[in-house]
């Protein structure tokens, strides 16, 4: 094995010296903590209706609002603060899990294809190129349309739609590593194929995979929220940011807060993920490092 520090340590060093990445990570950390701690942070249940007493209570900083409902309530008297926090659990998962699925499907295929080369590589990459030629939201839309709607199907659909991207990235990286001495050495040592791929080639391709995964997290979250907004993903009354926007659309003119808070949550999450992705890419890509230096 090489004496290089691990990829995660390298990434951490980059983040330590990059202000943008730090801010982005801090925001993401707060968002994730809020989502996990939702039941303890919010005093209300996200699903409890309260049609008699508290419909359209404005947020605390507007006249008529109070800290009892910090972000106000929606048309059914549900607490928007509680819904945004609980919604974070589902929305963040809908950004993250598709990336996990995409990495799980795409990376092994890409590594194998790049390492083996030849006929296998050609066929796999031809198909992959065809899939890459379509916008990922289109693939997700087709799958959702035909598999049926629902959280799990949405995740699978968006995940499959991202697999070709990861296959492409990891294949390129594997291609660069396959003839390096340490790989040839491991092969001569009689290491099995999976050991070569996952123990030797994978760690050296992680850099680019991490960058692409960060960016994909952002766009998968946007796409899932968009599909839910169109009524093709998570269905009301489940609290999810996109679905909340769809529900609040009709009440926009009397209660802007039902839309501003979930929308701002999506925007903030995607923005910080993109900032983090940009910073990591600039830091890890030697070409653009020169550019920003």
């Amino acid at each position, binding site marked *: 094995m090489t004496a290089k520090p691990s990829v995660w340590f390298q990434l951490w060093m980059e983040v330590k010296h990059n202000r943008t990445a730090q801010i982005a990570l801090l925001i993401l950390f707060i968002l994730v903590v809020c989502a996990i701690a939702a039941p303890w942070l919010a005093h209300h249940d996200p699903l409890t209706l309260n049609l008699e007493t508290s419909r359209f209570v404005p947020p605390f900083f507007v006249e008529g609002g109070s800290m009892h409902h910090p972000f106000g309530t929606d048309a059914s008297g549900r607490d928007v603060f509680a819904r945004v926090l609980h919604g974070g659990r589902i929305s963040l998962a809908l950004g993250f899990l598709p990336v996990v699925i995409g990495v799980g499907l795409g990376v092994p295929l890409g590594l194998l294809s790049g390492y083996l080369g030849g006929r296998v590589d050609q066929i796999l990459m031809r*198909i992959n190129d065809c899939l890459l030629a379509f916008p990922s939201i289109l693939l997700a839309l087709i799958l959702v349309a035909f598999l049926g709607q629902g959280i799990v199907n949405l995740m699978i659909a968006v995940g499959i739609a991202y697999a070709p991207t990861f296959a492409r990235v990891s294949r390129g990286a594997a291609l660069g590593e396959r003839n390096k001495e340490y790989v040839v050495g491991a092969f001569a040592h009689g290491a099995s194929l999976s050991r070569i791929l996952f123990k030797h080639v994978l760690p050296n391709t992680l850099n680019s995979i991490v960058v692409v995964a960060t960016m994909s997290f952002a766009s998968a979250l946007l796409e899932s929220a968009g599909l839910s907004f169109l009524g093709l993903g998570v269905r009301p009354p489940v609290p999810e940011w996109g679905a909340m926007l769809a529900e609040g659309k009709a009440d926009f003119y009397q209660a802007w807060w039902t839309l501003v808070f979930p929308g701002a949550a999506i925007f903030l999450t995607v923005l910080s993920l993109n900032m983090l992705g940009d910073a990591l890419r600039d830091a890890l890509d030697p070409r653009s490092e020169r550019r920003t230096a």
Partner: protein
Amino acid sequence: MFIRHAFTRFVASIPVLLLLTLVLFGALKLIPGDIALVMAGERATPERVEYIRESLHLNDPWFVQYGLYLKRLVLEADLGHSLFHDQPINTLFASAIPATVELAVAALLIAIPVGLFLGVVSAVARRSWWDRFASLIALTGVSMPIFWLALLLMWFFSLNLGWLPTSGRLSDEVLFDPASQSLFRMYTLDGLYLGLAGEGWDVFTSAVRYLVLPAVALSTIPMAHICRMTRSAMLDVLQQDYIRTARAKGLSVFKVVLKHAARNAALPVVTIMFLQAGALFGGAVITETMFAWPGLGKLLVESIGSRDFPMVQSGTLFVGCMFVLFNLMGDIVVGWLDPRIKQASGTQKGNG
């Protein structure tokens, strides 16, 4: 050599389209249960179910079905029959495509100049406040959920200021019957034609007022991508030696950018422009639904909701075709601009 490049790119896009038809054909098989029964709905008569089974050739083996599907698409240019609207899909598309094209062109007319301008300015004045401002706009553009932006635009410009309408294509007060009077099926063009013919400009003004908000909302993402690509391509070029030479000769920044840098930075920017345009011409799913714009995107979403599978199939096929077509046009234009391309280089792709 350029012709050969164009031809190779064209041939290379055929398997992509074939794969798309295969995926869409296969998708129909993913539906759980008996397709004919699902399509006909729960309360359909057995005759109707049998009719659907026959029209989809469900009693034949799958490759025969696929062959017949391809034959119908390619030779007869028939996209099928909508179950929900009970009309030929060709007819429905014929009325939806002009609306989509009008919106897409309007969005590109905003996105391309603004994106290019911001990208060039931030590359030339690198690390100035201009650069930070432009980069912030671009980052916001790629991160903004378009449905949220659309809602904010409606809230601000329609509800608060009362300047612009929120949905539809034309005001009821305008004396214009689209069914009989519209020549282009694009009301801004119709309005322009009427205005130039001396019939008054009220149709044109109304159509433009209805077009502004959806076009602005739709333009943000392509604008942001064009801006980011222009900035990085210009930065690459501006670091080259020949630019330094040109500057050393005493040429102004303006001249250097216009004469030397722009030409060489154009290739990646053109590619991304065509990619973005391809995505827009397939129908803006979210924007059209938000603004009740009767285009392909809205039709597609409605057909998924009503489980109108032939429509979903043909709708996504159209989106995919537009994407492939614009990708191909981008490749060809780049080949024409780039003297280095002697012959196609295999799997060269968009974002590079």
